[in-house]
């Protein structure tokens, strides 16, 4: 907690609760005031994530840890960045440059490089080595010059051990398993609940299911139920440049935004589900099942005898969730039940298969928080109070509305947005009517007016507009002279596309469905519920697996490594595994929470100017992309106090320095060189090359070569070839 005030900069890597959940709180209550950096999607999606969390909490209990205003002000203060955009920090951190690189896992997910002079710190927590539907793979796993070259061999790397001991089934088999379970349940008239987060991983699931639905022409409803579902999709549409190449390629070829879901319906309220009777698949937040629609539906659907039918519903976990949560509990149950069966099989297999769902039936004792409508006296009392207040507001609103210039389109939209839908207060209706009257005669107001009806569209939206907006417009203009037509359309109102969707948002009023003003109170009670459902865990966390972690770490080869974010077992496992990696640093730290590590690596550095005479006198030897030369000279200070290195004066005795061989020869490549020269060379073991039967080249470790052989012409020939593979300075 002290840290919040002391921090000089905050870098946020992912737009999910685990990575930024405490940010608004820290900003408001802990005195966090430093500059904050995150990529554009992290800012956008992080905001969605916090809105959803807040809304979920508010629907259950008194919630004042943070308010929506806190969220807004906190996220407005973030400096948005793009990938590979080196950003120099100011003030106290002057001299430090931070750069974001793609981490995959979530949209805008970031691996941070923090650089000062020659010291580089690489912060890579939660990344994905492999490509997914909507994201490319992390820069850590890209072999291109762009990727590792700038990230390789950092002074310090901080990474996670979360998945270090996990081997994942192939993506394809995971996909198939998911589709199979869905099909099975739906066929048996059950519904499927997929708890998910509200802003990041949900995109992958939504996209995957939407495509699957489109491919198979399913008629079962597919629903995304979060408080911010519409806006999550809305923002996803305009952040294609942050997604994988597949996305941008399909987009530029078909010009269809993949996040214009064809089958997935976006819902904001549990009640919306009633429109879709029968078996359905619902993606609901939050993945922990501790709060939000996810929990709501869990409690409704997964109970014994919960429905009129006998159908057993299925709960598919796609995420292991934080320990201590209901979801984590269920995961553990599932895991322990399942692991008994195939523990043996899993141990041997490199790529385990996805385990099948289990029938799960148990008693869960839990506290249920609810917000219930007021009844009886409470309600009356509330209404009287409310009515008085509302009358005052209505008067003001009416005055404001009249004085509004029509030009101020945005603002009047905002005023609409302020109004809650389906309010039962006549006063507010008057306000609405007031605006209605104002706009009624104006055909131009037609589109705007429809916004007031916050009906969620459930018609096939895609058919409703072309690239210029609503398809209806063409008719509209053809018939625009016909006022009757317009009025008719106005009355039909709800048919216009988008309706409430677009209106919901304004900077003053957060991007959320209007607050439900039904008078309510919070109750909470303990209950013991009997859970009966099919339970399955299929990994869609989008994180790298154990093997790739080791490969990537070996490739990056940090000088020091700190492992965080993992169970003690996984952390232990990883640090042991790394000991077996050849030439890996021994400086691997596994700190506990609160532990302070000193990992400073003070590098000395100063800049020096080289004179032309010196540079021209240098003899460079080339090695790959490097030019190397031995340089010796004397320092002089020029007028601007920059040290200048000049040629030594002729009297100077240049001390002899033994030449150094630079380069790391691969025996395999050297063999080719030898063969090109007509020398037979064969391997006897990994690191042993026998040439013409009497000269041996042996690798004794990094930077240690042994050339051994009988005195013979071949010996000298091979030696000179070996020298030629290095730069000698």
């Amino acid at each position: 907690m002290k840290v919040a005030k002391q921090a000089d900069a905050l870098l946020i890597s992912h737009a999910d609760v685990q990575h930024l959940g405490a940010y608004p709180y820290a900003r408001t209550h802990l005195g966090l005031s430093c500059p904050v950096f995150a990529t554009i999607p992290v800012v956008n999606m992080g905001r969605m994530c916090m809105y959803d969390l807040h809304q979920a909490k508010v629907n259950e209990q008194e919630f004042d840890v943070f308010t929506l205003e806190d969220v807004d002000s906190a996220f407005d203060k973030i400096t948005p960045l793009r990938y590979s955009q080196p950003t120099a920090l100011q003030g106290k951190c002057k001299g430090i440059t931070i750069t974001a690189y793609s981490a995959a896992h979530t949209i805008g997910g970031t691996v941070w490089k923090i650089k000062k002079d020659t010291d580089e710190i690489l912060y890579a927590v939660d990344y994905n080595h492999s490509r997914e539907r909507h994201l490319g793979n992390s820069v850590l796993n890209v072999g291109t010059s762009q990727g590792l070259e700038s990230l390789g061999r950092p002074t310090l790397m901080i990474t996670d051990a979360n998945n270090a001991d996990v081997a994942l089934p192939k993506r394809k088999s995971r996909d198939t398993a998911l589709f199979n379970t869905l099909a099975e349940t739906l066929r048996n008239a059950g519904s499927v609940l997929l708890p998910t987060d509200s802003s990041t991983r949900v995109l992958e699931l939504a996209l995957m299911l939407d495509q699957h639905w489109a491919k198979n022409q399913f008629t079962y409803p597919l629903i995304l139920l979060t408080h911010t579902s519409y806006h999550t999709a809305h923002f996803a549409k305009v952040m294609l440049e942050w997604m994988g190449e597949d996305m941008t390629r399909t987009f530029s070829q078909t010009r269809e935004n993949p996040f214009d879901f064809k089958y997935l319906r976006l819902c904001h309220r549990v009640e919306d589900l009633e429109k879709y009777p029968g078996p359905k698949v619902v993606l609901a937040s939050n993945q922990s099942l501790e709060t939000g629609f996810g929990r709501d539906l869990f409690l409704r659907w997964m109970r014994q005898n919960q429905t009129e039918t006998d159908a057993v519903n299925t709960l598919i976990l796609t995420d292991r969730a934080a320990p201590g949560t209901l979801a984590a509990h269920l995961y553990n149950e599932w895991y322990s039940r399942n692991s008994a069966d195939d523990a043996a099989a899993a141990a041997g297999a490199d790529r385990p298969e996805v385990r099948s769902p289990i029938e799960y039936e148990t008693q869960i004792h839990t506290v249920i928080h609810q917000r219930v409508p007021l009844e009886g006296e409470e309600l009356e009392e509330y209404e009287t109070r409310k009515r008085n207040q509302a009358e005052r507001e209505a008067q003001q609103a009416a005055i404001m509305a009249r004085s509004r210039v029509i030009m101020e389109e945005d603002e009047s939209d905002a005023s609409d947005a302020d109004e809650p839908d389906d309010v039962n207060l006549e006063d507010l209706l008057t306000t609405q009517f007031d605006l209605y009257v104002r706009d009624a005669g104006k055909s131009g107001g037609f589109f705007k007016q429809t916004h007031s009806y916050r009906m969620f569209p459930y018609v096939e939206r895609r058919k409703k507009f072309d690239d210029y907006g609503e398809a209806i417009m063409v008719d509209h203009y053809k018939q625009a002279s016909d006022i009757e037509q317009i009025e008719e359309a106005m009355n039909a109102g709800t048919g216009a596309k988008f309706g409430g969707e677009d209106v919901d948002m304004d900077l003053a009023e957060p991007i959320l469905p209007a607050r439900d003003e039904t008078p309510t109170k919070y109750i909470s009670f303990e209950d013991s519920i009997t859970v009966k459902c099919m339970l399955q865990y299929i990994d869609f966390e989008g994180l790298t697996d154990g093997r790739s972690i080791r490969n990537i770490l070996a490739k990056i080869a940090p000088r020091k490594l700190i492992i965080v974010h993992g169970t003690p077992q996984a952390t232990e496992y990883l640090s042991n595994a790394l000991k077996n990696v050849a030439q890996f640093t021994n400086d691997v730290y596994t700190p506990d929470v609160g532990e302070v590590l000193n990992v400073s690596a003070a590098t000395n550095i100063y800049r020096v100017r080289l004179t032309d005479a010196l540079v021209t006198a240098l003899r460079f030897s080339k090695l790959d992309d490097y030019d190397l030369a031995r340089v010796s000279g004397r320092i002089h200070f020029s007028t601007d106090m920059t040290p200048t290195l000049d040629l030594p004066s002729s009297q100077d005795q240049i001390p002899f320095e033994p030449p150094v061989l630079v380069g790391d020869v691969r025996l395999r490549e050297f063999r080719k060189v030898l063969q090109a020269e007509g020398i037979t060379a064969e391997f006897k073991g990994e690191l042993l090359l026998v040439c013409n039967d009497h000269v041996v080249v042996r690798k004794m470790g990094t930077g240690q070569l042994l050339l051994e052989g009988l005195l013979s012409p071949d010996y000298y020939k091979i030696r000179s070839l070996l020298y030629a593979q290095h730069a000698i300075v």
Partner: protein
Amino acid sequence: MAGIKRKPDHEIPIVDENDLLKLTCLGAGNEVGRSSLLLEYKGKSILLDAGIHPAYTGLASLPFFDEIDPGNVDVLLVSHFHLDHAGSVPYFMERTSFKGRVFMTHPTKAIYKWMLSDYIRVSNIGAEDQIYNEDDLTNSFHRIEAVDYHQQVEVEGIKFTSYNAGHVLGAAMFLIEIAGVKVLYTGDYSREEDRHLMAAEKPEGVQIDVLVTESTYGVQSHEPRLAKELRFTSLIRDIVTRGGRCLMPVFALGRAQELLLILDEYWEAHPELDSIPIYYASSLAKKCMAVYQTYINMMNARIRKQFAISNPFIFKHISNLKNVEQFEDSGPCVMMASPGMLQNGLSRELFERWAPDKRNGLVIAGYCVEGTPARLAMNNPPEIQAMDGRMIPLRMSVDYISFSAHVDFTQNSQFIAEVNAPHVVLVHGEANAMLRLKVALQQKFADSEENTKVYTPRNCETLSLHFRGEKMAKTIGSLAAKYPTENQAISGILVAKDFQLNVMSPDDLNEYGGGLLTTVLTQRQSVPFRATFSLLQWHLEMMFGDIHESELNKGGDSTEQIGTVIRILDTVDIKKLDDKPNQITLEWVGNAMNDMVADSVLAVILGIDSSPASVKVTHSPHSHSHGHAKITELEGEDEDMGQTHDELDDHHEQEFASVTTFLKKHFGDIDVNEKEKQVMIKMDGMEASVDCLSYSVKSDHELLQNRVSNVLQKVRRTINPISTVAG
């Protein structure tokens, strides 16, 4: 001032060709269209834009690519999607030897494809004359890498960053850095924020050495945006309310979207106009609207804020016209049609159709290249020539309101002053406009006593600027432990990569070399040696003076080695192992210096056998007793040697015995000639004679000779083995 020479004579003599930064206009030098600029420095070569000239067709419209070797170009950067900047990209990528990488921003790439496939379709030239086809376009598309604004990309020492340039969606300025020299290429840019685009930004915190800027508008000035918009909307209103049709020829993409936003907003605010349709007749623009609806994050804050409410690129009052047949030409309307300069196509067709009616109006909103019909119409001629050659009276009103998002003189000169680069290169402007701008700029710089040079290179003319490129290096690691003092000697290794120089001590190479590894090459050479060790020692002492002798005893090791080691000059170790009496091993760390010492040691060793000194030494009493001790050791195996001098023979004898044993085992009956150390092998009537000291075979029968020599090689290896076991 006007007469500034491009290459003043008083310039410092150029030592290194590499220090010259060369700029060659392959297009857009003293013209507008086919932008293409080649930048070369320090062996790196970058092509900026590859456009086509709108006024020409076929190969003539290309930039002068044959002036350069495309195979040498490392990187092609494309500033925006307009044809005069990106039109010849597929040609350059697919039909030349170019192998480098190509970069453009995400929206540019997305629109590029549609733009050019449209171009391929419309350019009504024969297939054999076509400069590239749809396949070339598709192939090139997949090779293009998309970048984001502010993203720093490094390609083999070329660092570049794209900055927002305004102009059109995705337009970029490129800041290129090679070996510390920074060049800013503006492309087409606009310094005025409009409805959807940001104003071009100036790269912060960098000193730019060369500024390559457009000069489309020369010394003209734009009218203020608000006034201009007002004039525009009221003009359109006038035309439609007088019952006329308003024709706006526009580029399909770019400015058109801005005009759509303005019109949509105006219509929204003026319901009385609602009955008048606005058409936008461009299938290309329709295709690309999705791109505009997607890359909101590359536009300005205003749009992003609006986007939070609804996507502003979903227009409410604009209808798309799929084809002309669909268009009912009845009554007033506003028609936006491409192409933008009335060269051909729909805009031209409608222009010819509507020109004779004086109620109608032509509103030219963009820049028009000299010689195009739109430019001609701006002069209000009484009649114009139709595409079929007829003369048509021009009665419709013609107005020119420049919405083209290029900088005007005020903005351009202000930007140039802000950037404050010592060299300013003008491109993308007609010769007159460019010259006027040059003069105006020189005037301005003369006033402010800035030493800025302005260049206006013609096409294919190479402009060479000399940059000595001050060489700054970083001293790191143990060398930099203390800040240097005057006249301090520094010695280390200079590591240069991608023009970054670091000086470090050899010991720090592994640490700070950025992936470099130093290697220690240990050399071990086995030499047959049959004299006594003491003799060797004596010779070495004579030659090298101080030698250091120690017992080698690697006890505990599985490969137990017991013997003696002599260290010479602290460089070469000579090992004699007790279990290998006929061989000594030289071991040293390989480098030029040590190799030399080793060679001289070897020369001494090899010379021992024949050296008269050996004879002398071994005859001395002292040596004799020593030698004798050795002999007694050997006597067990061979007894007929009395003289130390013959010890060598003794060894030969031994070796000979071994060889003959092997051969006997192998070939059965053999004739041994003890004296000549030769063996005769007879098999199946074939004969071979073997010299057992040189391991050579002579035989008339090739088959036998090969077989025997194979055996001999194996024998030789067995007798003088090299170690192939680990350790």
